[in-house]
């Protein structure tokens, strides 16, 4: 198995990745995952993280097969 990684909106455009996978390692967190996928740039403080479509913190302990999404502040809903 592996970790599925997704980026949305402006973050997707900046990083140039929409979907990717990364090998799972024991003790992996979203913050560590980010640094593997986006080398040389720590996870920005305003980036939101979801694990399996639920909001999670950057130090959330991942499980093999998890889907991890990184995205900027949300802006839905009209005025």
């Amino acid at each position, binding site marked *: 198995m592996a970790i599925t990684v997704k980026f949305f909106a*402006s973050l997707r455009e900046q990083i140039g990745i929409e979907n990717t996978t990364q090998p799972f390692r024991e003790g992996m967190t979203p913050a560590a995952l980010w640094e593997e996928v986006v080398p040389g740039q720590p996870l920005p403080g305003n980036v939101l993280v979801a694990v399996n*479509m639920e909001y999670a913190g950057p130090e959330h302990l991942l499980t093999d097969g998890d889907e991890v999404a990184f*995205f*900027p502040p*949300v802006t*839905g*809903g*009209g*005025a």
Partner: protein
Amino acid sequence: MSITVTPAPFEPWETLRAHELQLARRAKVGACAVFVGTMRDINEGDGVRAMTLEHYPGMTERHLERIAAEAKARWSLEDVLVVHRVGEVTPADPIVLVAVWSGHRREAFEACRFIMEDLKSKAPFWKKEQLDTQARWVEHNTPGH
């Protein structure tokens, strides 16, 4: 409870008319509070010609269902309806519709506003605006309180 994320344009009043026909306990409803958010042709002083609404398929629906369930747990409600548009949108198009039916008005008003504020601050949607000469991502929502 009805949660819809749709790339198709929707007419909020017709959606509400149709939804009310299937309300289970129509004569128990004394109050309905509704919010409709539509696209404006101006933002931060710039003319906006169109907009693209991106979302996180799967998480969006799940999150909206949770907000609606949370409102139903917190207030005594008869029904909740949420519709949110995604994809290409033009000015004056409805973007979001939130409707709450309850016995009394306080519950309907409070739950409707609660759902909208939660949706704006947490549901995974992102807007990209098409201006005259460039496109830009909306960076944050204006606070509602």
